């Protein structure tokens, strides 16, 4: 079997960057299977895919795509760039027609091909809708449909699932999987390691170099015997995780329901459980190694658990009422109800997760809760104060971090920090000390004078968090704050959040990463504008199927399916 694409010894350097984007990279993509391309942010995934499409030219090395030079066989290549490449002011049908014509689809086959694709992507109902008006998940499917409009021999997907909910993500995977039978070769770049795990082979890029190539199970195997699952410990699972991560024996750790899962540096050398205050009833059992473990291990392990940010953070005093409250929140846009009777009561020091498919009303709810949207009815309050009167005083007590990088790109790191210190009213004599402390905690020293827009993604995210907590707010609102961020940076981010929560900070978070949902104390699932389930992660899992051992993602999908079934039963 010949390779659909092969890259050997390719290097690429961009004029402005001191480091090579790709450094002697070799890779092959085979027909009939999905080849995964994973790696931290800025590792060179997009550069490599663009070289395969012929949009970028390598400085050295050879590239063959479908037996020819890149770009020569573009008729047979389906490519879906990171932003889907859709014309937002064209309808679904018009986007499909355009790509059909450009890729020279036979007119006779067209009707059948369109019917098949629209069926396949479930976009039939939306043919005349503008692409810009579709939800994230639907855009993603339309992007895929455009790439598939004339069955390609090589399909290149560049992080197709960023910012997309688990249901859509799973559907996308199933769609691509279904194509493999006809001998299509697929290269799939992703930041989701569970997706990578399901690929036939995986190439792991780090700083422009391939650090692993082979079946994902092989990488997982390197961690075999080093995974332990802790249950029955005293105290909270987050506290235990934080302390465990501080131990030199522990390379990485995550939360899974009521359990804490640790990756050890050496097999059979666990940390001193007494030292991490695990209590006497602790049960430690071996668990299966996963691709993610291998990934983190290969990249040197995760960050330590204790957050320097939390250490000198103002302790939030105990309070009686809820820290964040949503009572009968409803938002209507004309005849459309975006959020319908949402009720949340979040205690001091609690992490509340707001989950739901794209376009389900999660963002609307979130925006009403932090005062960006005025509810049509119902009230939202922070620290017992509603946004209705004296909103500025309420806003001074909350920190906010949004999915899109929302700092001032043309201002330097130092200027951004000074600005936020200023508008949050930090006293002038204390400003500099606070900024210095944050710069130190987030290791921003070498970037101080750089424009925020030019920072690497991981540092942008650190800066955004620094600005959000500069005034030590007792309440934090995080809106898909880790979207598109790689697993290592996400772990560091969550260590800070766990630390802050331990100081009494209350957090409301939305996310599409189901592993992050596990860090939450409680989760509210929003679907079709309604709050369909609320409870601890394990409660939700039990509600979904009675089995607390299922993954959060499975629970999420099962609960959505249940809601759909209930709605259909009611309609019938």
């Amino acid at each position, binding site marked *: 079997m010949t390779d659909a694409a092969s890259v050997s010894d390719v290097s690429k350097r961009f004029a402005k960057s001191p480091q090579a984007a790709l450094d002697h990279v070799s890779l092959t993509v085979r027909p009939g299977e999905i080849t995964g391309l994973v790696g931290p942010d800025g590792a060179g995934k997009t550069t490599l895919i663009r070289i395969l499409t012929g949009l970028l*030219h390598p400085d050295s090395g050879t590239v063959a795509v479908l037996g020819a030079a890149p770009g020569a066989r573009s008729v047979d290549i389906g490519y879906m760039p990171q932003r889907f490449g*859709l014309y937002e*002011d064209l309808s679904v049908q018009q986007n499909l027609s355009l790509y059909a014509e450009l890729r020279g689809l036979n007119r006779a086959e067209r009707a059948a091909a369109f019917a098949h694709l629209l069926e396949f992507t479930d976009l039939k109902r939306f043919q005349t809708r503008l692409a810009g008006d579709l939800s994230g998940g639907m855009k993603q499917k339309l992007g895929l449909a455009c790439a598939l409009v004339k069955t390609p021999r090589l399909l290149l997907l560049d992080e197709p699932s960023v910012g997309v909910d688990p249901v859509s993500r799973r559907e996308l995977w199933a769609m691509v999987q279904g194509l493999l039978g006809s001998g299509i070769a697929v290269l799939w770049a992703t930041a989701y390691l569970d997706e990578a795990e399901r690929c036939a082979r995986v190439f792991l890029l780090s700083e422009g170099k391939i650090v692993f190539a082979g079946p994902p199970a092989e990488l997982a195997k390197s961690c075999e015997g080093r995974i332990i699952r802790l249950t029955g410990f005293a105290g909270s699972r987050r506290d235990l995780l934080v302390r465990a991560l501080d131990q030199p024996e522990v390379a990485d750790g995550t939360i899974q329901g009521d359990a804490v899962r640790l990756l050890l540096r050496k097999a059979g050398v666990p940390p001193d459980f007494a030292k991490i205050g695990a209590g006497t009833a602790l049960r430690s059992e071996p668990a299966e190694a996963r691709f993610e473990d291998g990934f983190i291990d290969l990249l040197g392990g995760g960050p330590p658990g204790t957050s320097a940010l939390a250490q000198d953070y103002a302790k939030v005093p105990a309070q009686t009422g809820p820290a964040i409250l949503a009572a009968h929140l409803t938002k209507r846009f004309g005849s459309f109800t975006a959020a319908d009777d949402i009720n949340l009561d979040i205690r001091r020091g609690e992490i509340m997760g707001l989950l739901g498919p794209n376009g389900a009303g999660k963002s609307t709810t979130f925006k009403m809760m932090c005062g960006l949207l005025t509810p049509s009815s119902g009230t939202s309050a922070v620290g017992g104060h509603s946004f209705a009167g004296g909103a500025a005083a309420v806003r001074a007590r909350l920190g906010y971090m949004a999915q899109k990088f929302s700092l001032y790109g043309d201002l330097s790191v130092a200027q951004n920090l000074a600005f936020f210190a200023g508008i949050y009213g930090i006293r002038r004599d204390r400003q500099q000390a606070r900024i210095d402390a944050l710069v130190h905690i987030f290791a921003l020293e070498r970037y101080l004078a750089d424009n925020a827009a030019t920072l690497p993604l991981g540092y942008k995210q650190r800066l955004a968090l620094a600005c959000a907590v500069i005034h030590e707010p007792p309440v934090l609102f995080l809106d898909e704050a880790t979207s598109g961020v790689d697993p290592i940076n996400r772990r560091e981010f969550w260590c800070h959040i766990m630390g802050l929560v331990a100081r009494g900070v209350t957090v409301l978070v939305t996310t599409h990463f189901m592993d992050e949902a596990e860090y939450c104390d409680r989760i509210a699932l929003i679907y079709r504008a309604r709050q369909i389930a609320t409870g601890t992660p394990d409660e939700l899992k039990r509600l979904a199927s009675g089995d607390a051992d299922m993954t959060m993602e499975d629970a999420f999908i099962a609960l959505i399916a249940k809601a759909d079934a209930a709605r259909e039963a009611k309609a019938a």
Partner: protein
Amino acid sequence: MNLRRIVALIEKEGVQILRDPSTLLIAFVLPLILLFLFGYGVSLDTGHTRIGLVLESSSAPALGLAQSFENSAWFDVQLARSVAELRPELVAGRIRGIVVIPLDFGETEARAVRASPIEIIVDGSQPNTASFVAAYAEGVRAAWAQPRPPAVTLDARFTFNPELRSRFFLVPGAIAIVMTMIGTLLTALVIAREWERGTIEALFATPVTMGEFLISKLVPYFLLALGSMAMCTVLAVTVFGVPLRGSAWALLAIAATFLTSALGQGLFISAAVKNQFVASQIALLTAFLPAMLLSGFIFEIGSMPRALQYLTRIVPARYLIPSLQTVFVAGDIWRLFLPNMLALLGFGAVFAALTLRVTRKSLD
């Protein structure tokens, strides 16, 4: 070149034009505003200008001259006793000039000794108006005085525009501005937009060639500009009363050659900068302002400093304006059109070459 792909891309562009309010704004609303402003707002035809008249004498000749000023179609006269009284009015700009008929005016006329001159004071802060006021005031006086016929008089005949309506040159000029805006600004924006929105990446990964892509951008905006020009022409003739003495074919040919240059410039800008905002600023500075200022549209090129006169030679609109003004008010004068059209085609070729140099089907 694959015709099918070109047609598909042109269709796509057409749909986008119809859906994008800013395109329609530039192509159809802006022309209306410009035509309207130049048709009504910017008039260089002096009508009733307010002046002050200081009548120091009450002799019959003085009163007669004053009457002539009051009857004049050019002036609205405000009477006063002294210049001092009118000075604040002139400072405030409420009057544009003062005519002083001196105390001894009548007497000297009667005695036929030394004629004491009348005084014409004008507001020099607006030199153009000042010149007109001075000339017309002197005209009124001269007509009143009815001296012996001067030895030599000038018979001026204004061809093409005997009534000297400034609209006749301002409205065709405004059409030139409109075509510059659509050709250069819109084209500069649309390619930059594809870069900004990331759609160009998906497009370039298909078999589309650079040539096909550029043609698909040129054709719709070429047609759009012609459509907008046709709309302006109809308005110019029907609403603003500007004649179209040349043939529609000549107008079309002139417009088409200009558009090769304007569209070429737009393509080049967007190929070079890839950012909508910067592209629009550059289009404004290199196309709109020169077309307005350095094309001979309002301001005479011959009156500019030598260096600027040379600079105007690389302003495409400079080669459009004379042809447009001619085809509207004079007629088909091909000996004037052809050299100008040739120059415009030359610009088009230069821009095309530059564009091909800077664009490759690559993100490098």
